[in-house]
């Protein structure tokens, strides 16, 4: 494959996605450096979730480049499974856990491991894996609920379990779509702490509506509008930007 000279972990250039003529993404370009945490904000329909869909292989861009790991991998040519195997993990907007499985089994399924048919048929639990699951339980604070069926968890607990599943995957890049939607203020603050902790070792992209939460994170912010970047900078710079104020309040 052709090498692209970029130091970025994730490189998006001129991404366009249209659905029946409606341009969900319109020449979207931005970079994420390794180890960075980035917040993506924008009004409804700005293209935030479509951007995640493009990066994780759910949606193919009509035009533009998506490269991962300094331009080594062209994500627009891979499917969801391949992209997950490269180390890109995704948390959905609506918490999506496996309702019928126990909390522990949810983590087990997410745990970084050989994903092929034969490997899962012959799989045996091992001490390092069990230890890893314990570590994740410590981080997401759900240990007391480990043998509960995931479907019976509260909304906030499901959000945390899903973040735990992302950790278990040990991805290089995490895409987190509205992690605090429907959470209480206390839970929101805890989630901000959790994400900051995760960011110590991993690159994180957070898509969020909640401005207080984004301020808590204290990271670089990209504001999307109508499928392209409107403004980028610290939260104060972005929130003082006239155009940003206009699209947020003007409709």
């Amino acid at each position: 494959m052709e090498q692209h000279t970029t130091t970025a972990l994730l490189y998006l250039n001129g991404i366009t996605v249209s659905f029946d003529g409606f341009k969900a993404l319109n020449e979207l370009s931005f970079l994420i450096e390794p180890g960075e945490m980035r917040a993506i904000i924008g009004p409804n329909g700005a293209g935030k979730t479509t951007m995640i869909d493009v990066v994780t292989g759910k949606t193919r861009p009509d035009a533009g480049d998506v490269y991962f790991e300094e331009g080594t991998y062209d994500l627009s040519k891979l499917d969801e499974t391949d992209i997950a195997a490269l180390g890109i993990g995704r948390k959905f907007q609506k918490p999506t856990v496996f309702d019928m499985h126990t909390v522990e089994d949810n983590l087990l399924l997410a745990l970084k491991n050989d994903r092929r048919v034969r490997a899962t048929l012959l799989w045996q639990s091992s001490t390092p894996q069990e230890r890893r699951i314990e570590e994740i339980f410590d981080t997401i604070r759900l240990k007391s609920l480990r043998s509960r069926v995931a479907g019976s968890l509260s909304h906030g607990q499901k959000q945390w379990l899903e973040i735990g599943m992302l950790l278990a995957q040990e991805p290089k890049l995490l895409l987190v779509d509205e992690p605090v939607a429907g959470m209480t203020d206390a839970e929101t603050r805890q989630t901000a702490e959790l994400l900051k902790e995760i960011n110590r070792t991993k690159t994180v992209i957070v898509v969020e509506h909640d401005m207080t939460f984004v301020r808590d994170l204290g990271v670089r912010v990209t504001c999307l509008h109508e499928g392209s970047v409107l403004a980028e900078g610290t939260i104060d710079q972005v929130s003082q930007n006239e155009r940003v104020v206009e699209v947020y309040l003007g409709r």
Partner: protein
Amino acid sequence: MTAHPLIRMLDRGAVLFLALLGAFAIAIPVLNLLVPEGSALHVSTYLVALFGKYVCYGILALSIDLIWGYAGILSLGHGAFFALGGYAMGMYLMRQIGTRGVYANPILPDFMVFLNWKELPVYWYGFQYFPYAALMVMLVPGALAFVFGWFAFRSRVTGVYLSIITQAMTFALMLGFFRNNFGFGGNNGLTDFKDILGFNVQAEGTRNALLVVSCLALAIGFLICRAIVTSKFGKVLVAIRDAEARTRFLGYRVEAYKLFVFTLSACMAGVAGALYVPQVGIINPSEFAPGNSIEAVIWVAVGGRGTLTGAVLGAFVVNYAKTFFTSGVLAPYWLFMLGGLFIAVTLLLPRGVIGTYNHWRDGRGEARAAGVPNAPPHAAK
């Protein structure tokens, strides 16, 4: 935290099921062969063959439950794999007739002589050997399922669309097998079997042996299914059933999982068909009828999908009811009753008989655990 695989596999329900099946496999032949005919406990040879048939239906139900109950693949064409396995066995049985046929042709089955065929078609070669036929019993349905699944799962055909194309598949096969030039006896199918492995298929001893072998096949099939659904592979299957997209984003190759389990299920259905044919004495294209496949799905729904034992129970109960009602004055109304049963189960017992019982039992267990302070958490399944 995780028990030894063998303990996980053989939980209380599984052991109970195998014990009942073993007792059944011993009791029926004993009551048929050793208890004198006048006795109230005597089981007639007719019943032995009938029960043998139910056991084969049980294997078919098990194969459907494996893909429907655990992976969410609703096949409405599983009767096709059953019938293909049956035809493979039928071809062996035809070749065993030899010169005892009406036309006494040592090579050609009667229907080929009747159609004025001069030589055996190539695809009939080798079927005089039992091991070859036994291999084909699994290989032919398995290969069809593999090719079918390869295209369907790669193109991400799911849900009702997949169900519809499985119906189309079995319907197409039925039309094909009805044709004389297909080389499988047209609408008469294959029948007039004489012996299997040198034993007369009509003999009492053979019928009992076939029942026992069918029970054995059911037990082996059950153990294979249990091993699969209690492994991590089984957890991935349930994950696919409940949230397919999520499973993909976790990095699992969903189509590979579905293809494996679908092909295995088709092989099991083939074995069921192969054991069925010598016990009923005939295989014809009506076995491919779409209605048969739907009926098999109803057995699983009645017994409880995603339980394995429920599927077998459903196959027994519904077929017993069918035998009972279709042999009396109620015969014309059987299909109404079957339809009514399906609606009643869907509305009132959506988990099926065994599924409802399991749910009730788990609910009680959880209530108990919640009632006692510091109760130890359930052992992970």
